[in-house]
């Protein structure tokens, strides 16, 4: 599979000269599967540009896996080109809720007064389903979703194809659930990330910021590193960058994380818009 990052900023889109290096769009990651299927993780503002690219091809099917429905993960939907083009089939997956269906919850944003046009007016064929409780297949990939520690119903995803694994936990505060240095099976999200080739993980805060934001649902870079180590992932990509974090400050955070993981795995990286990584089966 080919992993393309269209948005890695967290909480709020943050365009401008200070963030132009890693980008200001909120979460959206495209997976181009080996059989050509398109899988999209989250629908933050990054999905707008992805949509323009998808419109260059004939209408087809896209699977969109939402981790949760906080605005930064759905705000791009209203500007996702395929939604407004007849012939496209969009299959949405998201966390279950005890109060409303996924369609009803997404429609809260895609309806007046928050958005001028209702979801029911979109010409594309859109279906909405809660994530299954066990693995399911999309194209040639096997997907798993599990609830993870964050504010409100939230899932993380594990996508496996050709023995390569991507784990996606953009909004996650595992530190709340267990000491990250031991008892891995009691750490939120551990089973999703265990042994992954690439982990895109929340690293919104510095350690100092985290002390003031305990319980807000996000991780520090240090916690992301400890989680990656506990899960024995091959490579960590810092994700969900704080909207106040400049490129330069982000690189300082990266240096701290890279030092923590120096002996454990491939060097971590900073997820940035335009980043493309191919996870291919070993020959």
């Amino acid at each position, binding site marked *: 599979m080919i992993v393309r990052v269209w948005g890695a900023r967290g909480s709020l889109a943050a365009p401008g000269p200070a963030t132009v290096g890693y980008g200001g769009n909120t979460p959206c990651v495209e997976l181009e599967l080996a059989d050509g299927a398109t899988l999209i993780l989250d629908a933050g503002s990054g999905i707008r540009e992805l949509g323009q690219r998808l419109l260059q091809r004939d209408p087809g099917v896209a699977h969109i896996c939402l981790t949760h429905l906080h605005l930064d993960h759905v705000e791009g939907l209203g500007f996702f080109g395929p939604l407004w083009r007849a012939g496209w089939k969009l299959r949405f997956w998201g966390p279950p809720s005890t109060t409303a269906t996924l369609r009803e919850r997404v429609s809260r944003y895609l309806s007046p007064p928050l958005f001028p046009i209702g979801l029911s007016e979109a010409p594309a064929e859109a279906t909405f389903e809660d994530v299954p409780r066990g693995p399911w297949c999309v194209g040639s990939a096997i997907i798993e979703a599990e609830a993870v520690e964050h504010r409100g119903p939230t899932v993380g995803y594990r996508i496996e194809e050709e023995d390569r694994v991507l784990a996606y936990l953009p909004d996650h505060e595992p530190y709340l*659930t267990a000491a990250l240095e031991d008892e891995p099976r009691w750490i939120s999200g551990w089973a999703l990330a265990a*042994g992954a080739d690439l982990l895109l993980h929340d690293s919104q805060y510095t350690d100092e910021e985290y002390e003031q934001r305990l319980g807000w649902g996000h991780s520090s870079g240090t916690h992301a590193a400890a989680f990656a180590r506990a899960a024995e992932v091959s490579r960590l990509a810092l994700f969900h960058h704080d909207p106040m974090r400049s490129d330069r400050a982000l690189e300082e955070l990266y240096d701290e994380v890279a030092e923590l993981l120096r002996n454990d795995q491939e060097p971590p990286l900073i997820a940035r818009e335009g980043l493309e990584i191919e996870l291919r089966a070993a020959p």
Partner: protein
Amino acid sequence: MERKQPDLVLIVARSFATKLATPTVIIDARGDLVYFNDAAADVLGRSYLDVGALRASRWQELFEPRTLDEQPLTAEQTPGGVALLERRPVHDSFAMRGLDGREHEITVTAFPLFSHPDEVVGAMSIFWELPAAP
């Protein structure tokens, strides 16, 4: 790598219990004891770190739960077991023996842990020692 892990509801319940000063025990969907906190250790006679997880049959054997008039209770008949099997909150009192050999009479409130409206992943029991009879 074996990737199985407890449901998030059980993970968060355990995390919650670690922070409580009230004695708290957690069992999973099979009735196996998967955690008790430090406050519970005072009554159960040893710490969770020492004891670890216990199968339902094992903790029943170790703690010897009994009604207050000394009739033996199975794991399924304790408040945690009833909460799990009948999917409802329960409040009851019973006697048990700690791993240090001390006898206790405790009053327990147990409730099932639902991860979905139709799925119970375990039960949480909080308890207090009954005052000793004068």
